[in-house]
């Protein structure tokens, strides 16, 4: 499996099916159904990309986004929501989301955004925890 993706949405049937489709595209995706579990998962097994819904019972997506960006600033966050307010989109992008999609989403568009967000991560000199990446000096130095 390739990229580590964590999906967070209280619509269990939706998020499990989306996760299965991402797995068919060689992504190591995993789904959880609330914000609190997502944050615990981010602490124990930080993903490379986090895909979150906004309106969920308990902790909502904006709170999750805020906390993840504080503790793991280089995890790329993609918002995928049924709630279509322009203000929400602006808030999410200001908080550091990589992309904002409305449901239903085209899987190819989402797949492309995930790949592009990873490219952004890889070109960043720091890792998902915000630490400097070790520079690969190669195996041969004449």
């Amino acid at each position, binding site marked *: 499996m390739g990229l580590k993706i964590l999906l967070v949405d209280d619509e269990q*049937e*939706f998020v499990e099916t*989306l996760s299965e*489709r991402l797995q*068919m595209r060689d992504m190591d995706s995993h789904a959880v159904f609330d914000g609190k579990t997502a944050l615990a998962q981010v602490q124990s097994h930080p993903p490379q990309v986090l895909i979150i819904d906004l309106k969920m*019972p*308990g902790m*909502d997506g904006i709170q999750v986004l805020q906390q993840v960006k504080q503790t793991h600033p280089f995890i790329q966050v993609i918002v995928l929501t049924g*709630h279509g307010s322009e203000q929400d989109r602006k808030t999410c992008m200001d908080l550091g989301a990589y992309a904002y999609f409305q449901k239903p989403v085209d*899987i190819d568009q989402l797949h492309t955004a995930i790949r592009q967000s990873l490219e952004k991560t890889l070109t960043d000199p720091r890792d998902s925890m915000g630490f400097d990446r070790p520079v690969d000096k190669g195996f041969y130095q004449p």
Partner: protein
Amino acid sequence: MSPNNDPCPETDRLADMADVKFFGALAAAMTHDMKNVLAIINENAGLLGDLAVKSQKKATPIDPLKASTISEKIRKNVTRADHMMKRFNRFSHSMDHAEEFVDMEETVMLVASLSERIIRRHGATLTVIPPPVPCRIHARRFVVLHLIFRALDILCCNHADPASDTQKQMTVRFGSNLTRPEICFTRDPGFMIKRDALFDSPKDRALLAHVKMKVKMMDAGAGFCLCTARPEHG
């Protein structure tokens, strides 16, 4: 939604503003729900397509059980969307008539289903205990829907943190007097409602005035009841 001959234009204006806000809140919740159902249908249809591509590439047939499960999920969500649209249609048509006899249990059930997402998002559950006798009032149906929604909002959200982990239990029950309809709203044991949070704003008062109802605190602040200000017949 106020009658043109109402002698209180300020009350009318406030009630109209609140009505528009109420319609917007329920329409937003409803369209959000619809988007979620469409998203489930979209992913399941997409999964069938993915399986077809995979099967073609590997020259192996699609697992018939898997295909049938996906198809069933799509069918189930089309039914779910249909029920949502029917409820929303009933809600939209609640503005069609002027005053009429409105069944309160039916109205509470409609508000409960339309605002299910809002209630769930605030960590609450709602139980409606059927009335011992028919409970009907003569009023504008849309305004009654609005009043019930507002009552649930006060009960659910005006006293607690929406992100709280505690599950809130709300109960609606009806009075037993046929000619003096009464609807009571209570929360989980130990919950105390504050009088100053009860329909105290000018918009709330305008809403109550339009359905000719008054609000009554229950003992020890356990909840509140909405009662008609005059006997109802019909």
